[in-house]
Structure formats: structure tokens, C-alpha cells
């Protein structure tokens, strides 16, 4: 009996789940989603036949097609915050060395497929600087402790030590390089070098001028170094046996060597008189013969550097890597840019979805009543409606012409992203193509708890035509650490004022909800000195009335405190006072989450089976905070607090023993979901906490944090997540009617899980299909159909950005990390749209059929009546 019951429950669960989970059909693949793969900022690059093999600062080895720039294969190694790639060389296979200060992994990869061939480790106990290089299947590992070179030669394939040498070599360690079998150091005004073999002697290269001299590797087949003495002047020194030989003419600091049909060539990049053009110079090493070509450097890219070169039959591919992490492939004699990759997009630090402006045609309808007399208004109306009709019939040419215009359902948006390298992008949601780019020099993101973020605010949307939309980005100056601010049009990427460098550090910033006369939402920036600044400054008077009831919070990571501040107006300036402080010490603050400011809660409460309403505690000012404290008995104790941002009132707190990070928080409506790793059970647990006011609502019209009558009732339940979440997010829709879905970013993609599955069940309420309640299951199911990225691998997911479409059922989702993936999700299916497989033909046929049949039957009925009448 019990068996049957459990089977029944399982089947019920399954049916409910199948109703809840929203999966794609196979023919919908790529219809409204796109994925872009990135590899990160290139550190090593080498050509091999038609492939370009790169090793990047993201600790990634990848092969790109040198024809198109697409990723052929990609192998993601350990986390770049712990391990870095130190060497990449192509011998027969690709050889990489990656690791940290005393432990390295040597791997060799197949060039064609990217399969691992061998893997072995080098571990050392002495932490000094180590240099690696590969020559003829030997891996040279050089440790230099100031007076002695300890050289170990490993066999690359097996990891066996072939020989080890000790060579006396006195030099300071910081300006040393290993080039194949030569070790060279810059010492005061000479360069000392030695060949790594038994009984070899240190030789010296004298320098003409030693100020600001630098040495670097000259990338070529023959061992050579570049000695740079000034920003435009440097020379190549070739090593040959125990001797060296200088190249006849001086070169640019970033020269690269390549062999073309047996002739060694030097490639250099030079600037030209025309700032948008660059000059490529190729010099034959043996006779100094030169060939130069000028080409137009793509607009918007940073300063380029030569990263790799390859020549096949006098046609050369040059790989340029720019200061803003872009990669370019230039074909040489033609001087043509073959492809460009924006690797900056592998490190996104801020995102925002923006509605597009209306098309010219729609905008002209808006202006209808602005014209003078009645006749002109009438004519205007007739012409616009004629154009609308022609658009409807002949397809909208206007859309095709202008591209970025609003559609009916808000499905076409522009995503503005800011990247760590300080480059801004506008991305079209329909195609994933880049609409514009904007480069900010010398900026870096803010450090926030465990992540790096820039602050991006939408001050004015595109709704107020002809005024353009306006976005503001806040970041940090990478030199001074002060704040920077930039305003730009998110649709075109045009910035009127360009970058403004502030003379203070930014602690917090918030957007006020009230527009000023130009429909711009004023931005309040709070400095580290405790002053508040308003942008634009003209809004200062406009917000005077709102200042007194504007509150902001700041987090002090060092002291583990949360502070609340109240704005007030003093004369012409806005000042702040400290209104509350919550000290969380000695625990360490690890995560913080606020609700999305654009979220709307549709339903006020939950209907109980007796048809009474249990009201939700919907406090938009609530902050969720997680701290971890060391405990002698329970190892780590995780504490979760819900703190009101206006008053500092702790609405709820709880703790978990023997819990470990990473902690992820998601906070929406009246609930909080968090995940942590339980060391006791060695599994990831997810806890859902829901806050209720009770069966009476204290104030049904407006919520006030200052009017607290009682503590909210809290319902909680916890679940096991059979995976390791990387980040958490929740769906967001226009009006909040649609069911909420949670997005769990896992190692193999993003899973959507209905909130209903996690929602705490009431102990005294029967749970069943009639209450649309799923019986409690301890383990959160992760069905394959729930992966929104289906079989596309998304590596190192850093965040999920969610925005509502104008269609209530649909949310936009952008998953960013090493890959960029965009899709649309409809948690309750698209209930406000006809299904895409809706059969228009069938319904027309049926209607026509019914009309015909009704006429025929009428005819027969009248015939019958006639016959009966004659009887």
C-alpha cells in the first residue's frame, strides 16, 4: 500500500513538474538565444598551420581558426585567481605550464582536437622566481636565487628529470628572462647572459644608455632578446653559441620575428601621421631590405601590440592584441583586417537592459498635435497612417533601415555592458551583434565583497523622445583610486561630456525615483568623506523636497558594519547624517543582496484553503546580509540577517552551524533564498525563507519602514541541491503576475527552478494540486529540460542579468562569464501570446466550413419545410 501511495505521489509530482518546467522544443534552438565564446586576454599566442593557439590570463588554452577567429576548441584550466598560465609553446603538441608560486602543472595538448596528451606536476619547496621554457622537447625550469641558477631539465612527455645544473650567476632577479636555453639579466648598465649547459660562462652585452632600459623576449625561432632603451628605440640581440650578435638597425620595442620560406623577417608596428592608420614594417634580417604597408586601424580599439606572426608563401598573418583586450588578425601584404575579437567581454562588471527608442514613424505620430492648424494636422495624420499601412503591407522598411527600434512586445532591447578593461559595449539582444563600443582609459571596477563591479544607472530611458536616453557609469580611476563618472547615450554609445574624473572616492551611489524637469532621475553619489553629490547638479533644487526622506546604506568590509545614512538639505548642499549602524563583527561579511528596484509585487498575500488571505510582508527596503564566523566547536557559523535599510531594524536572523561558502543570496518579493555548503552533510543546501505580516495588513496602500507594529512571521524550509551553484538569480517580469523562477548557475549551465518548488509549505495546510502546492521534496530536482542553455557549455559563469520584457510572461536573461549567453524565458509559458505553432489555417478552414455548412443546412431545412407544408 505504502508503495502504491509513494508511486502516486511521485506521479503527481512528475505531472506537476512537467507542467511547471518550461523546456524548449528542438526546433527553437537559436531562435531567440545566442551564445558567444571568449577566451580572455591573450598572454601567449602562436600560429600552427591554420590555427591560432592562445593561452590567456583566464588560464585558458584555446585554438582559434586563423581564417574566421572562431573558437575551434577551448580547455579551461584552474581558477585564474589561484593559478596562472606561465608558458605556452608549440613543439609537436601544445605545451603549457600553469600554476602558482611553488606548484605547476605541465600539460601537453593535441593541436587538432584539444585532447590532453600528458599531464604531470612540478612541485618545489623553495619560493623564488621560476622561469620556464621549452626547447627540443626539454622543459627548462630555472630558479634564480640571486647568486646561483638552479636549472632542471625535464622531459616534456614523461616529466622525468633529464639533468640538473648549477650555474653561478650573480644578478638581481627582477629583470631576468629565459629565452630557450639562454638566461639573460639586466644588471645596472649591462645585460649578462648565460647558456644553460655545463661549464658555460656568463657573457656581457654593454648598453649605450642604461636609464629605463628593459629586456624582453624576441618572439622568433632563433633565441634572441630585445633590449629597449627608450619608448621608440630598441635593439635585437641574437644569441649564437656563446656569442651574441646585434641586429644592424634599431627596431620598435615590440618587434616580432618570423621565418618566411627560409628568410627570417622582423615585423614592427609604427604610427603614422594619420592617427587612424598604422604602418606595418617587415625587414629581412640578413640584408635589411624593408617593405611597409599602411592600413586603417579599426576605430575604437586601444593601442595595439604584435602578439604573433606566421608567414606561408609570402602571405603573412599578424596577430595584434590591443590594450583593451581585443584581438585582430591582419593579413600582411594586403594590410587587411581579417577579423576582430572583443575579448574584453569575457570580464563583464556591469550590465543593464535598455528599451529602444520608437521608430521615426511612431515618433512622428507622437508629434501629431504639435503642428499648427487643423488642416496640417489632418494631412499629417493621413500621411503617417498611409505610411503605416504601407509598412504593414510591404514589410517595415523603416525597421530594416534604422535597425535599433522598439518592437511591440519589448523583446528587442539593447544590453549595455561595462567590462573590467574599461570598455563599454552596446549589444543587440536579437542578434548578439555589437551596436557600439566605447573605450575608457585608466579605469577599474570597484571591489565589492568578493566581486568586482562598476555601477551602471539608467537616468533617462528612451521613452522621452526627442530627448535621448541617458546612462551613467561609475567606476574607479586606476591610477588615483578616485571615482570617475561618465554619461552616455546607451542607444548610440555617444558621450557628450566624455569622462569626468572626480576628486573623491565613491562609497555608494543611488538613483532617486523622481524625475527632474528633463526627465532625468538624479543620481546621488556618496563619497568616502561622507559628502553627497547630485548629478546632474541642476537637479539639486528639484530633489530638495525628497532629500529628507531619502536613505542610503554603506558597507564597511574591514569593520564588518552596515551603516544607514539620511540625506538632508543644508542651504544649497545635500548633507548626510548617520542614522543607524549594525555591527556584525567579529563575523565576516560575505554576501549582501538588495531587491531589484524595478520589481513589482502583484499579489498582496497568499490565499489559504479556508479562502482567507495571509498577507505578505513586502518591504522594498530590506537588505539580506550573510556573515561567516569562526567557531571553535562548529568550525564555521553562517548567519543570515534581513535588515531594513531605512531604520536598521533586523527583521529576521538565523544561523547555520558548520556551514561554508560560497554563499549566494537571492532576494525578491517577500522571500529570500540562499545557498551554502554544509560541511556536516557535505552537500549544498538551499534555504527559502518567506515573510508574512499575518492575516491582517497593517497598511494596504503604502508600505513604510518607519511604521513597524510587529515582527513578520517567517516560514522556512531547506532543501538539498545536488550541485555546486556558482551564482543565483530570479526572474523579473513587467508586473510580477507571472510565476517566479530561480536561476541556478551550475558548472554545466543555468537551470531554472520554479519558486513554487522551494516555497515553504505551511505546516497546518494540506498540500495538494488543488492548492497548487507541490509536496515537499528534500532534493531539488534538476531536470535536463530545465537547462536554459541546453547543450551549449557555459564556462565560469560570473553573473546572470535579468530584465523584464514588455510582454508580461517573458524575461530577458543574460548569462555572463567566459561565455556570453542570452535567451528569453517565459516561466509560466507565453500565456499572453498565441503559441507559435498556432494553426491559423485550421481555424480559417473551420470557420469557412461552418459558414458553408450553415447555409447548406438552411437550404435543406427550407426544402423539408416546403415538403411538409405540401403534405
Amino acid at each position, binding site marked *: 500500500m505504502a508503495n502504491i501511495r509513494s508511486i502516486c505521489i511521485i506521479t503527481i509530482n512528475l505531472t506537476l513538474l512537467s507542467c511547471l518546467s518550461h*523546456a*524548449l*522544443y*528542438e*526546433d527553437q*534552438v537559436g531562435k531567440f538565444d545566442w551564445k558567444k565564446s571568449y577566451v580572455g586576454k591573450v598572454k601567449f599566442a602562436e600560429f600552427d598551420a591554420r590555427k591560432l593557439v592562445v593561452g590567456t590570463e583566464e588560464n585558458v588554452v584555446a585554438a582559434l581558426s586563423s581564417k574566421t577567429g572562431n573558437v575551434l*576548441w577551448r580547455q*579551461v*584550466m*584552474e*581558477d585564474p585567481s589561484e593559478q596562472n598560465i606561465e608558458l605556452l609553446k608549440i613543439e609537436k603538441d601544445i605545451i603549457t605550464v600553469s600554476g602558482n608560486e611553488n*606548484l605547476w602543472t605541465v600539460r601537453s595538448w*593535441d593541436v587538432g*582536437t584539444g*585532447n*590532453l*596528451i*600528458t*599531464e*604531470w*606536476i*612540478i*612541485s618545489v*619547496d623553495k619560493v623564488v622566481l621560476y622561469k620556464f621554457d621549452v626547447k627540443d622537447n626539454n622543459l627548462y625550469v630555472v630558479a634564480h636565487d640571486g647568486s646561483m641558477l638552479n636549472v632542471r631539465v625535464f622531459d616534456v612527455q*614523461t*616529466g*622525468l*628529470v633529464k639533468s640538473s645544473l648549477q650555474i653561478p650567476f650573480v644578478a638581481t632577479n627582477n629583470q631576468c628572462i629565459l629565452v630557450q636555453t639562454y638566461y639573460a639579466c639586466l644588471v645596472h648598465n649591462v645585460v649578462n647572459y648565460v647558456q644553460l649547459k655545463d661549464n658555460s660562462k656568463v657573457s656581457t652585452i654593454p648598453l649605450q644608455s642604461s636609464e629605463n632600459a628593459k629586456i624582453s623576449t624576441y618572439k622568433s625561432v632563433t633565441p634572441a632578446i630585445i633590449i629597449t632603451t627608450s619608448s621608440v628605440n630598441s635593439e635585437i640581440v641574437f644569441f649564437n653559441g656563446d656569442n651574441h650578435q646585434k641586429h644592424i638597425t634599431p627596431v620598435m620595442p615590440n618587434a616580432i620575428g618570423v621565418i618566411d620560406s627560409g628568410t627570417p623577417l622582423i615585423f614592427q608596428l609604427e604610427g603614422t601621421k594619420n592617427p587612424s592608420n598604422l604602418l606595418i614594417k617587415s625587414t629581412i634580417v640578413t640584408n635589411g631590405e624593408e617593405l611597409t604597408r599602411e592600413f586603417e586601424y579599426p576605430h575604437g580599439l586601444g593601442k595595439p601590440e604584435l602578439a604573433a606572426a606566421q608567414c606561408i608563401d609570402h602571405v603573412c598573418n599578424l596577430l595584434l592584441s590591443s590594450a583593451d583586450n581585443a584581438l585582430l588578425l591582419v593579413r600582411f601584404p594586403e594590410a587587411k583586417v581579417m577579423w576582430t575579437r572583443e575579448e574584453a567581454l569575457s570580464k563583464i562588471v556591469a550590465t543593464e537592459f535598455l528599451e529602444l527608442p520608437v521608430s521615426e514613424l511612431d515618433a512622428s505620430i507622437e508629434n501629431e498635435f504639435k503642428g499648427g492648424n487643423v488642416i496640417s494636422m489632418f494631412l499629417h495624420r493621413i500621411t503617417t497612417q498611409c505610411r503605416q499601412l504601407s509598412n504593414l503591407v510591404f514589410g517595415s522598411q523603416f525597421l530594416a533601415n534604422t535597425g535599433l527600434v522598439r518592437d511591440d512586445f519589448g523583446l528587442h532591447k539593447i544590453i549595455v555592458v561595462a567590462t573590467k578593461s574599461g570598455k563599454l559595449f552596446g549589444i543587440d539582444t536579437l542578434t548578439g551583434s555589437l551596436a557600439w563600443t566605447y573605450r575608457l582609459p585608466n579605469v577599474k571596477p570597484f571591489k565589492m565583497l568578493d566581486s568586482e563591479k562598476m555601477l551602471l544607472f539608467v537616468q533617462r530611458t528612451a521613452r522621452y523622445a526627442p530627448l535621448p536616453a541617458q546612462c551613467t557609469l561609475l567606476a574607479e580611476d586606476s591610477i588615483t583610486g578616485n571615482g570617475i563618472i561618465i554619461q552616455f547615450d546607451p542607444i548610440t554609445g555617444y558621450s557628450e561630456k566624455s569622462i569626468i574624473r572626480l576628486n573623491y572616492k565613491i562609497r555608494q551611489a543611488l538613483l532617486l525615483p523622481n524625475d527632474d524637469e528633463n526627465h532625468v532621475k538624479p543620481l546621488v553619489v556618496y563619497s568616502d568623506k561622507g559628502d553627497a553629490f547630485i548629478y546632474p547638479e541642476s537637479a539639486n533644487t528639484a530633489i530638495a523636497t525628497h532629500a529628507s526622506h531619502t536613505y542610503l546604506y554603506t558597507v564597511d568590509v574591514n569593520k564588518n558594519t552596515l551603516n544607514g545614512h539620511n540625506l538632508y538639505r543644508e542651504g544649497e548642499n545635500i548633507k548626510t547624517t548617520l542614522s543607524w549602524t549594525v555591527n556584525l563583527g567579529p563575523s565576516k561579511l560575505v554576501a549582501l543582496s538588495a531587491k531589484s528596484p524595478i520589481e513589482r509585487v502583484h499579489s498582496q498575500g497568499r490565499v489559504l484553503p479556508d479562502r482567507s488571505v495571509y498577507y505578505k510582508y513586502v518591504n522594498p527596503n530590506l537588505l539580506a546580509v550573510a556573515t561567516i564566523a569562526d567557531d571553535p566547536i562548529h568550525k564555521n557559523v553562517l548567519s543570515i540577517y534581513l535588515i531594513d535599510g531605512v531604520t536598521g531594524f533586523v527583521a529576521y536572523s538565523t544561523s547555520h552551524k558548520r556551514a561554508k561558502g560560497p554563499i549566494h543570496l537571492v532576494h525578491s518579493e517577500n522571500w529570500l533564498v540562499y545557498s551554502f555548503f554544509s560541511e556536516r*552533510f*557535505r*552537500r549544498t543546501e538551499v534555504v527559502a525563507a518567506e515573510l508574512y505580516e499575518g492575516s491582517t495588513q497593517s497598511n494596504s496602500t503604502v508600505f513604510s519602514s518607519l511604521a513597524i507594529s510587529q515582527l513578520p512571521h517567517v516560514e522556512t524550509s531547506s532543501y*538539498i541541491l*545536488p*550541485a*555546486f551553484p*556558482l551564482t543565483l538569480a530570479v526572474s523579473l517580469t513587467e508586473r510580477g503576475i507571472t510565476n517566479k523562477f530561480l536561476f541556478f548557475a551550475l*558548472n*554545466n549551465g543555468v537551470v531554472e527552478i520554479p519558486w513554487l518548488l522551494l516555497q515553504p509549505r505551511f505546516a497546518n495546510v494540506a498540500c495538494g494540486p488543488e492548492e497548487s502546492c507541490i509536496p515537499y521534496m*528534500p532534493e531539488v530536482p534538476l531536470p*535536463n*529540460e530545465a*537547462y536554459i542553455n*541546453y*547543450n*551549449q*557549455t557555459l564556462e565560469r559563469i560570473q553573473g546572470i542579468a535579468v530584465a523584464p520584457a514588455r510582454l508580461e510572461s517573458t524575461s530577458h536573461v543574460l548569462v555572463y562569464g567566459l561565455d556570453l549567453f542570452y535567451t528569453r524565458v517565459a516561466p509560466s509559458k507565453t500565456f499572453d501570446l498565441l503559441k507559435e505553432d498556432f494553426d491559423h489555417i485550421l*481555424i480559417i478552414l*473551420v470557420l469557412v*466550413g*461552418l459558414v458553408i*455548412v450553415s*447555409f447548406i*443546412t*438552411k*437550404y435543406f*431545412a*427550407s*426544402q423539408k*419545410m*416546403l415538403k411538409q407544408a405540401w403534405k
Partner: protein
Amino acid sequence: MGCRNKRPPQLRVDLSLYVCLSHLSAANAELPNSLEEVNDNARFTIEGRVFPLSDYQTTQSNWQTNTRILINGGEFRGFVKKDGSFLINNVPSGSYVMEILNPDYTFEPLRVEINSKGKFRARKVNFIQSTVVPVPYPLKVKALTNTRYFQVREQWRLTDFIFNPMVMMMFLPLVLIMILPKMMNDPETKKEMEQIQNLTKFEMPEMGDYVSNLLAGTSNSPSQDKKKAIKNKKRQ
């Protein structure tokens, strides 16, 4: 699958030999450490082999590159060699969950436990109960199934078509018209029906006329048209 298992045994031996060697070299490097520390900082290598489904050649030619092995969600990473074997180097003693991720195949996660003496134990992952289902070590992991990410579109079926409400709407009245008169052979129901028809009679002749006129086409008498027009007006 069989052919996978019958792979030449020499290869396997070679590999494990190589593993020992590489481990030795690592141990060599660690030798200068004091012996007490070795136990604490001891690092181990998890080894095993992945078997995809037997039809892999037809569906995914380069499954090795697309397969990733993650320990504790990415704390350590392993890569699959051409023959399906993998190594995860440098793992300290402890308990780990090993996931094998491939976009097209589903693998079962495993729990691998390494004690401080370097003894390995592997079992199936069960987060709810602490039942131990041991798995032999070195690990041999087979793909469970092809992963299905998509819903299957409903196929066109005759029954679906017939029970479609619109089709029912079309055919049910037809059936009623055809079958009901046959059923009305007994006199009582006939009488009832006639009564009902008498009730609705007042409109029918006019509509019948309209239809017959429409079908007759040419013989439209103007008087009738007028009458109809008046009646139509009245109705409005």
C-alpha cells in the same frame, strides 16, 4: 560498449606505469620536506577512465575535449585523454564529489574519499541517506544516457484531430442532423418535435425564401425584396 572494454590491456598498464612515474617525480621534488610534513601536505592523484555511449563516434567525434571532470564544483579539474582516461593531480586527502560533465551525455556523480595514508575509496553520491554503494577504484565511469534537453513536439495524430474541439464542433451537428431524424421514428417524440418546430415556425419560411431566392438568383421579384427590407428594418 564491449569494444571499449576490450581495449588492449597493455595500454592500460602503460598508463598506470606512467602515472606511478609521474608521481615519483613529484615525490622526488617533495623529498627535501621534513618527513612529518609529508603526511599533512601529501597530495594524491585521482585516476579513472570515462566511457561514453557506444555510439559516440557517430554523434560526437571529439567528446574528450568536451568532457570536463570537476572535483567539488571546480576546486580541481581533470581533462580526458584520447583513450578516455583521466588524472586529477595534486588533491589533498579528504572527501570530494566528482562530476563528469559533457554536453551530450549524462554521467553519474561519484564521491571519492582519500584518507591521509593515500587510500582511495569511491562510492555513489547520495545526498539524502548515508547508504554506501561502493564503486571500484580506479574509477570507471560509463555514460548513463544521451542527455535530452528538449521537449518533444506533439505529433499529428488522427485521434487528436477528431477530438479537437473545432472539429467536434463541425461534425457533431452533422451527426445530430443525420441521426436524430432516424431516431424520431416513434410517434411521441415526433409529436413533440413537431410542436417545437411549430414554435419556431414563424421565421423559417422567410429564411427559406431568402435562400431559395439566393440560389434561384435571376427570378428576384422586387416586391419580395422590399418586404424583406422592411422586415429587416423592423428587426433592427
